[in-house]
């Protein structure tokens, strides 16, 4: 930021009826003089000008008492105005204070260039980055009152640290912290579903995910175990059945019957299989599915023939016809409305392709066979099933003809088979519960993720997704915390380092100004602390203030004008020369309000610089409220204000 003052305007302020103090060069109105020396006798309004400047740059709202204190006393008027023309980074701003003396109130007015919003606004409306820093205390550092230099040593009135932050751009690092918070907030909003944003929540999710993972491992182990058990149980049953058969087949008295039964059962099983397939194959033909279905299709076939469906005329016929000049009946197709009518007709007819499908359907049911009863086949199948059942029972009864010992054995085998079969049913149900993907089955048995592998996998995927999202957010949140912590450390460590530099540079400067080391800048802690071996005089504190301020502003990328009232009042001649030599080097724009008694020692030093204007302003007693204004250097140098007389 680079601020320069180009002009001060007064209207009906104390003794100023109308006064403009130009600070720009005639040749280039947007460039200020490097140095403007404004000589004004005490009582002319120097303090008024300084106070107004300090208020206007920071947008201070003045109280009634202060507003009224600016009202001219020597003549009557109701309104006053104080304004400045500023150039900030190449943009012109006009800032004004309107005073309403009747009501004791004031209001601001800002005119801005088009490029930065343009127009006029009836408020203090400098760019936000300037408004934010222009506090009353900050303005005291560059709108400076030499007579009150002790203020800079007063911890209530200076803001050394805040000023360092601003002048060295460290306040922008605070802005980075805010931006990081915004990023985090957006991230949280975008992962609203997860709702887990804390380390604690994340740990909980991780525990849940771990538990599910373990469950999945356990369920798979169980499945494997049940499957093995199922295979071995089936094998056992098979072995037992074989054993049972052996028991019967090896017994001579029942051997023949046993073999007969077994063969018959096997042949019946064949018959059952065949019968089933025959019925199934017949049912696969819709017209043979049932009498009702056969009737229905016959009806449809008859209807289609009766109604001449599909009609031999296709929609294409009408479409083609609509393009002809003459209808098939010989009448001419004269206009679009007739064409439209014909095309409407087309929509009511099947297209040629449609007709093909319809003809296939029609053909499939045209010469349909009559329905053949399946009752015989059904009854045969049923009798095979019954017969098989009876044979199995008969085979089972054979064991009654075994001797007692073998009978016992057979009974034991039977009981064991029953037991194992029941186990097998249970095992298969367990297996199915574990591995089924069928949602109807899962619902029927109210299975959950701790009982079914498929549900567990789904839950795990879901949980992982949430976990990924959450850990992303939580990690980012931790990153933001670290980032902010680093920023804080960098800011405070930068301030410390810059303070060290400021102190050592300032002290070099102090000894240069004073020619001794009687006064030393000790530390900057909110304000600056000075260690004076023999106490600190007013002159010494002024020198310290110059040394500190010049160092503070020298290295900052921000450039502000330095405005000073009574710059060397309490300094001795030697220090005055040093100050006048030093200050112009450090500021791009220097505005000095001075009284004639301060010229000695100070103006001579300044005189070495080229880009200087000499203004003399004093009350012209010949006319009330009239102010005399001179720009002549010679006049400036010879002016004596103490007796307020003009000496030419």
């Amino acid at each position, binding site marked *: 930021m680079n601020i320069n003052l180009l002009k001060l305007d007064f209207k009906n302020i104390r003794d100023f009826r109308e006064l403009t103090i130009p600070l720009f060069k005639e040749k280039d109105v947007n460039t200020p003089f490097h140095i403007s020396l404004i000589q004004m006798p005490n009582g002319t309004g120097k303090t008024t000008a300084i106070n107004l400047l300090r208020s206007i740059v920071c947008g201070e709202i003045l109280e009634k008492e202060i507003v009224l204190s600016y009202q001219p006393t020597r003549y009557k008027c109701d309104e006053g105005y104080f304004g400045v023309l500023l150039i900030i980074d190449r943009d012109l701003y006009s800032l004004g204070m309107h005073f309403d003396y009747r009501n004791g109130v004031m209001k601001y007015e800002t005119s801005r260039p088009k490029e930065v919003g343009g127009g006029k606004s009836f408020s203090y409306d400098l760019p936000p980055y300037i408004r934010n820093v222009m506090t009353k205390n900050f303005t005291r550092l560059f709108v400076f009152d030499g007579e009150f230099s002790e203020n800079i040593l007063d911890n209530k009135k200076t803001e050394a640290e805040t000023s360092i932050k601003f002048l060295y751009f460290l306040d922008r690092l605070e802005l980075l912290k805010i931006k990081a918070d915004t990023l985090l907030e957006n991230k949280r909003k975008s992962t609203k579903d997860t709702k887990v944003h804390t380390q604690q929540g994340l740990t909980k999710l991780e525990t849940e995910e771990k538990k599910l993972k373990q469950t999945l491992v356990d369920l798979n182990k169980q499945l494997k175990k049940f499957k093995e058990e199922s295979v071995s149980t089936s094998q056992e049953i098979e072995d037992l059945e074989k054993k049972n058969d052996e028991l019967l087949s090896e017994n001579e008295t029942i051997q023949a019957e046993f073999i007969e039964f077994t063969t018959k059962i096997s042949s019946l099983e064949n018959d*059952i*299989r065949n*019968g*089933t*397939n025959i*019925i*199934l194959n017949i*049912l*696969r*033909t*819709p*017209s043979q*599915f*049932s*009498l*009702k*279905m056969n009737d*229905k*299709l016959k*009806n*449809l*076939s008859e*209807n289609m023939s009766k*109604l*001449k*469906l*599909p*009609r031999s005329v296709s929609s294409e016929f009408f479409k083609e016809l609509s393009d002809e000049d003459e209808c098939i009946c010989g009448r001419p197709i004269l206009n679009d409305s007739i064409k439209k009518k014909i095309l409407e007709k087309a929509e*009511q*007819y*099947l*297209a040629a*392709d*449609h007709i*093909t*499908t*319809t003809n*296939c*359907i*029609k*053909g*499939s*049911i045209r010469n349909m066979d009559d329905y053949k009863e*399946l*009752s015989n086949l*059904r009854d045969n*199948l*049923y009798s095979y*099933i019954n017969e098989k059942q009876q044979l199995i029972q008969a085979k089972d009864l054979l064991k009654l003809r075994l001797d007692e010992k073998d009978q016992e054995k057979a009974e034991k085998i039977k009981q064991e088979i029953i037991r194992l079969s029941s186990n097998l049913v249970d095992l298969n149900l367990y297996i199915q519960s574990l591995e089924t993907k*069928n*949602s*109807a*089955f899962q619902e*029927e048995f109210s299975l959950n993720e701790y009982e079914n592998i498929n549900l567990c996998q789904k839950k795990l995927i879901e949980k992982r997704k949430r976990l990924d999202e959450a850990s992303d957010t939580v990690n980012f949140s931790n990153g933001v915390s670290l980032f902010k912590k680093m920023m804080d450390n960098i800011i405070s460590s930068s301030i410390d380092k810059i303070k060290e530099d400021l102190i050592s540079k300032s002290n070099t400067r102090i000894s240069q100004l004073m020619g001794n080391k009687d006064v030393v800048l000790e530390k900057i802690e909110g304000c600056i602390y000075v260690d004076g071996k023999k106490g600190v005089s007013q002159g010494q504190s002024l020198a310290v203030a110059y040394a500190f301020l010049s160092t503070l502003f020298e290295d900052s990328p921000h450039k502000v004008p330095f405005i000073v009232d009574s710059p060397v009042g309490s300094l001795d001649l030697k220090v005055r020369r040093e100050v006048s030599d030093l200050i112009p080097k450090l500021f791009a724009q220097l505005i000095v309000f001075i009284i004639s008694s301060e010229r000695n020692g100070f103006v001579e030093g300044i005189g070495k610089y080229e880009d200087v204007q000499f203004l003399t302003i004093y009350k012209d007693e010949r006319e009330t409220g009239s102010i005399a204004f001179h720009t002549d250097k010679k006049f400036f140098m010879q002016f004596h204000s103490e007796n307020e007389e003009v000496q030419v």
Partner: protein
Amino acid sequence: MTFRLSNQAKSYFKNIFGKGSDDKLDILWDEYYICLMIGFSEVKIGDEASADSEITKTFPQAYKDQRYEIMASLIASEIDRRGISKVKDIENLMLSILDHNSSTELSSEGHRLMNRYVAGGFEIIKENIREVNELHMFLIKYYDILINVTNE
């Protein structure tokens, strides 16, 4: 456009279904057909939303020859259900059910109706036959309800 069956129906048929087995239903379309024909026969349609599982997009090889008869059955059942008899109405019905551009020659409306007849047919089966373990027992009971329901 697909042929769809409810998971509930798949679960019901699980014991008598087995690919490559000679005493079980070989393809899922058998289950679909078994339900479909009872639905046609009884002109009962069910809830489309219950058909949550896709079986196939086309008629399987085993049913290719019967596909026009199946479509005819759909048309006949819809004529019954809608109670229509005029040429124009029947033609409109065909226009909405058939689509010569579709691989099945059925429009999406045609598919939707088929699936609804399947859902309706399954309701009848579920009410009348408890789950069985053997295809032959199922078939006897299926035939019996076919006769009984048909005679009602």
